[in-house]
């Protein structure tokens, strides 16, 4: 069934969009991330213009993360104080990111920038995740020693310390605010919620306990994605509501099935699988940049 997308100004198969939403939602429920990093490249692949794909991807991520946030909040797995600090940085970062995106669009390098960001960020995060989880799986086999709660290094000497009860941390607000800023900026450019970057950053950089990481990251993702949606809608006018809603239709259903299946997998295996998936997306985008294009010329509406 073909449906005309009013902002993308093109006609797409509605079932294809619902199907993509379902698949991405299923994976995101399985791994506990928003799935924006899969969604945006897929949308670009089926021919949605990248500015619309990025903006609508952020909007979809918002919807997909809301249900997860509600569930985590009920179980008391959200560190709202930490979330608020991340969010301050996230708002500033997404504001800067949308400006940067507008600039890239004017000079005609959006496609390159989006692809490069994906390759670099996904490649790094994916490689780290795979390495870490493989190490964890090996250590489990040996029944090795238990690490300290987290390592102490230079970061813990910074001023403006604050106590985060739920996370059992007493650290400076500067690192979480910086993490929030970076992730906010990337989410504006890549059209992702940033969960896949935030989760490792919170575990490895901030030393937060895994139990509150997913809930707190969802907290940040929901609000940053809402901010990105608003900014993209008001400044660039690229959010396609119909596209978002079709994706969500499949997405929310998929997420519930994925989450049910996710509880049956062990933490390390899940992380290794997610890492491999992230690496695969990075690899395919890298191939797109390296391979000789079929048509060297492309046209775009001028601004």
């Amino acid at each position, binding site marked *: 069934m073909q449906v*005309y997308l009013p902002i993308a100004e093109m006609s797409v198969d509605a079932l294809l969009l619902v199907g993509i939403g379902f698949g991405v939602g299923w994976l995101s429920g399985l791994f506990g991330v928003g799935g924006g990093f899969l969604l945006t490249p897929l949308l670009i692949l089926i021919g949605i213009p990248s500015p619309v794909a990025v903006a609508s991807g952020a909007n979809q991520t918002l*919807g997909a993360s809301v249900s997860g946030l509600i569930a985590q909040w009920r179980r008391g797995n959200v560190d709202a104080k930490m979330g608020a600090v991340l969010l301050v940085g996230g708002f500033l970062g997404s504001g800067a990111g949308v400006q940067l995106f507008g600039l890239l669009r004017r000079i*005609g390098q959006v496609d390159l920038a989006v692809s490069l960001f994906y390759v670099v960020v996904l490649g790094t995060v994916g490689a780290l995740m795979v390495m870490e989880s493989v190490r964890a799986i090996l250590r489990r086999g040996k029944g090795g020693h238990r690490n300290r709660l987290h390592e102490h290094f230079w970061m813990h000497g910074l001023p403006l310390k604050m106590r985060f009860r739920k996370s059992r941390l007493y650290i400076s607000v500067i690192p979480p605010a910086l993490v929030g800023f970076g992730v906010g900026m990337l989410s504006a450019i890549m059209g992702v919620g940033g969960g896949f970057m935030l989760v490792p950053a919170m575990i490895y950089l901030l030393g937060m306990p895994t139990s509150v990481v997913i809930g707190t990251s969802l907290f940040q993702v929901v609000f940053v994605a*809402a901010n990105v949606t608003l900014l993209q*809608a008001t400044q660039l006018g690229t959010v396609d*509501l119909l596209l978002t809603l079709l994706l969500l239709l499949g997405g929310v*259903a998929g997420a519930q099935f994925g989450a049910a299946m996710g509880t049956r997998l062990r933490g390390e295996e899940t992380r290794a699988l997610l890492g491999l998936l992230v690496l695969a997306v990075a690899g395919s985008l890298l191939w797109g*940049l390296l391979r000789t294009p079929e048509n060297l010329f492309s046209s775009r509406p001028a601004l």
Partner: protein
Amino acid sequence: MIARLLLLLLALLPVSAPAQEAPLVASISESDVEITTGFTGASVMIFGATEAPIGPGGDEILVVVRGPTRPLVVRRKVRALGILWVNGPSARFPRVPGYYAIAGTRPAWQLLPEEERQRNGLGLDALPLESTGARSPRFRAALLELETASGRWLENAASVEIEGSRLFHVEFPLPATVPTGDYRVEVLLVRSRQIAARQELQFRVDRVGIADRIATVAQAEPLIYGIACVVLAATAGWLGSIVFRRG
């Protein structure tokens, strides 16, 4: 439908033709093309009649449809750092017709002298496309290729059909990506390598229904639209979690 329209025309013809001695009468099948949520493309038919018989040596017909213009940028990819393909030089075309279609009883270049054809912009190679930026003619050629591939520019893809030697009709396809706005149709009667008569028609392409409302609100009230997107997406996510909650 074609037969009905032609019958209608035949009924009109004896009245209009002798009174004004019009060498050419033409009309269009619809004056409004509506883009609904299920829009996958449409077509318009232009039909009419001539006073003298149509055919080689006699009258010939050319029909041109021009959509609203918009500015376009054409970019060429170049190799950066020896391995990456990035967008390089670009040419800006300020007035590119979003739709252009030409059809005739014969190709325009066979019917008219070259000068005349260029002056009237009859044919893709005769489109007046000024540009700024990169100078190479390859950008213009690339634009032609891209627009033709998208189905928005057509040259002799449809053909003018003749019936009873004086009735003609031609159907132009409008792909799903046609821009909205006013379209101008020109029907030309060519006699001995000269434009002997012309008639202008027009139609509009408009979004209607939900598609129209979304696009209008997004453009006129971006803040309200943005808030609506946030609220609707959040609501959809929340509803979904209730509907599909297990256990």
